[in-house]
């Protein structure tokens, strides 16, 4: 009898990129659900729009590059990028913000560098930073959480708001938007108020902002699930939270009037999303086990430094891109000792 000959190992592979990406998407569900609950269905519209644009952009550029389209789209990486970018945007961002960001992420940050696996920078964060630098006004207008009495918008209102940039006649733009907790700490500190005073403002909840705490909890839950499923290692999230927490604790211990509590920093803004879903992007992170811990610590520290002393209230995107820059060097200096070789 004749048989085909193939090289060993013959055992079936235990994992696939498609499976990894799918689980990342599943793990995002609790966070997205919380966002939808507190900020309305705008987030879902943004996600749908981003995914559609991402798939279209990925398919076109794969076509231009002469690469297989169908089998590559199936790897879900474009969808992951689109969703991560969409949930980072303000929920009332006009449609063109999403489109520009996604196009930049997929076409320039991902495919002009060679596509999946070859991009040195996290595509979603590259898209986000482009938008933040180019359109600061649209990128900082956050909707107030529902519980703060922001007007109830129905589905049609939402579509009109995002695609036509129109609010219902009886609602003023300023009435529905407000600064994010991070932004408000920053501005109010500039006005000479102390942190304990600022924290009495209505936007704040128990730890960080109202609603924001639940969103962070959702991402934390999803992230822990990813860790349990061994899709991500503990090194980057723990490193990031530790780096941020450590910096925040030291400053808080020195002066709790000028610096917010570490618990605030760990829950506010994009900390949880960044720690578990963005900094952990394997393509752009350091790869060695020790390297990843250092990489996480570095990003966490940068987040704090930029938040407190830099020009932007949240800093996850900048910190991650800076971290991406250092990944090759970190890998170079954290090579493990090979079995049987001298250190």
């Amino acid at each position, binding site marked *: 009898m004749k048989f085909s000959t193939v090289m060993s190992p013959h*055992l079936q592979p235990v994992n696939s990129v*498609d499976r990894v990406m799918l689980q990342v998407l599943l793990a995002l569900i609790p966070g997205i659900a919380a966002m939808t609950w507190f900020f309305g269905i705008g987030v879902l519209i943004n996600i749908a729009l981003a995914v559609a644009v991402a798939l279209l952009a990925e398919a076109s550029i794969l076509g231009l590059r002469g690469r297989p389209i169908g089998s590559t789209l199936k790897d879900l990486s474009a969808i992951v990028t689109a969703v991560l970018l969409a949930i980072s945007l303000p929920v009332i961002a006009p449609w063109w913000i999403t489109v520009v960001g996604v196009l930049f992420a997929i076409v320039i940050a991902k495919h002009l560098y060679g596509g999946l696996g070859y991009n040195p920078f996290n595509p979603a964060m590259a898209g986000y930073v482009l938008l933040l630098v180019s359109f600061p006004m649209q990128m900082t207008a956050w909707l107030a959480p529902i519980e703060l009495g922001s007007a109830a918008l129905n589905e049609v209102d939402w579509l009109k708001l995002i695609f036509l940039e129109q609010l219902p006649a009886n609602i003023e733009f300023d009435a529905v938007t407000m600064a994010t907790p991070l932004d408000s700490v920053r501005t109010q500190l500039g006005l000479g108020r102390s942190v304990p005073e600022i924290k009495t403002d209505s936007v704040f909840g128990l730890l960080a902002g109202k609603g924001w705490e639940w969103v962070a909890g959702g991402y934390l839950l999803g992230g822990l699930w990813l860790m349990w499923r061994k899709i991500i290692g503990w090194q980057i999230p723990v490193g990031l939270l530790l780096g941020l927490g450590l910096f925040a604790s030291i400053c808080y211990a020195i002066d709790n009037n000028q610096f917010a509590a570490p618990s605030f920093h760990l829950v506010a803004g994009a900390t949880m999303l960044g720690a578990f879903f963005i900094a952990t992007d394997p393509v752009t992170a350091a790869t060695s086990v020790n390297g990843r811990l250092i990489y996480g610590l570095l990003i966490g520290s940068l987040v704090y430094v930029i938040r407190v002393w830099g020009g932007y209230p949240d800093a996850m995107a900048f910190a991650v891109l800076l971290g991406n820059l250092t990944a090759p060097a970190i890998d170079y200096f954290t090579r493990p000792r*090979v079995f049987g070789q001298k250190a």
Partner: protein
Amino acid sequence: MLKTWRFHGGLRLPAHKNLSAHRPIVNAELPKQLIYPLQQRPGVQLKATVAPGDTVLRGQIIADSDHFLATPLHAASSGTVKSIEDRIIPHPSGLSDPCIIIDTDGRDEALPPEPVEDYRLEPAATLRAKIRQAGIVGLGGAAFPTSIKLNPGPQRHIDTLILNGAECEPYITCDNVLMQAEPDAIVQGALILMHALQVGDGIIAVEDHMTEAFQALSAAIEQSRDRRLTVVKIPALYPTGGEKQLIRVVTGKETPSGGIPADVGVICQNVGTAAAVYNAICRGLPLTERVVTVTGQGVKQQQNMRARIGTPISDLINQCGGYQDSVERLIMGGPMMGFALPEDDIPIVKATNCILAAAGSEVATSKETRPCIRCGDCAKACPVDLLPQQLYWHSRAGNLEKCKEFSLFDCIECGCCEVVCPSQIPLVQYYRAAKSKTIAKAKEAEKAAIAKRRHDFLLERKAREQAERAERSRRKKEALAKLKAAETATEGAE
């Protein structure tokens, strides 16, 4: 209970051992024809010592060579040498090579055995010669001549013998059942090896799930009343059965990169090899048979068979009820490091521990390879602590210098990285290719160096000859001038 150590990485693989582990060893029927590739070990070509038409007896040497890695090959039954012809040999290349074909006569007559009366009275050199003469090689799969391993040289002090009973590859159970069936032969073999090596410590390592084997060996040791030998259970983690990994787990020692176990005072032998040593020394029987696991969902009855070396695989499969329709691939060895055979009219050799007739559902049939996403799972799984992903980039780019820098040659090709790779990249293929390219390049460089030495020598010789010629002609001229001067002087005097 002895303390055990850990090595980095490794995988817990689905074992599939129950298919064959709990059935008695079946004696395979004597085949009509025995096939003996003259290359029992890749790269070592034996010379036939018989010619077509010769009659042979079981245990008679039919091929040998004076290559230092060669061991003699014995006929596994009586019969007539039919021919020496090219047949497909069990080798990853799937190529043909000369084989001795013996038609068996069914009488199975053997040469009279020549046992050693009391091995304890024999010097190590005699035992080594006897072991080589019996054709014994490592039966764990590598087929390295046992007599050479027993001679580590005076500069290395050996203190421990480890018998490898850790069958870490999925499916394979031949060592497990042998330990259950013949614990005394293994224990006696171990004591002979310890005597030949003059070591005081012997450890038999079995995986923690091999309860019966552990008990059988413990009882056999008890009976031998030799306190120098112990059995130890080690975790079933692939590739614990790899020599350097096993030494690490059992002794905590790390065999240096590029070195051999003897460098850390350890000699490793497979349990089957120990039994073969016992048979050779105490029963005078050369190595002509071994236990082979025939398994996989692609064969009707999975079992362990005691088969004559040289038996065609198709014979064994027939005695196991034939193939299932689902059979997809025929593998010699395990699913991690074994190689796929192009057909089943290929004989088992000394190194054949397993014939895996795998169904399509058991093996990777179509991998959807995607770009590397740098997830680092490969580095986590690597038992040698390499960076497989970096090695992949450099071997793909053909950058052999970088491959060397990332310790390509420390890679044991265990396949862990490839099995965990979510991008399903055929990593091991890249490493094998880079290794052979490096070796080819080194050979090329060596050739070039020899050619250069020759050329330089030629130039040097030419220059020397020229100088000598010039010197000669100068001397001639001088002599001539002297002569002339003398003549003139004489003429003047006259």
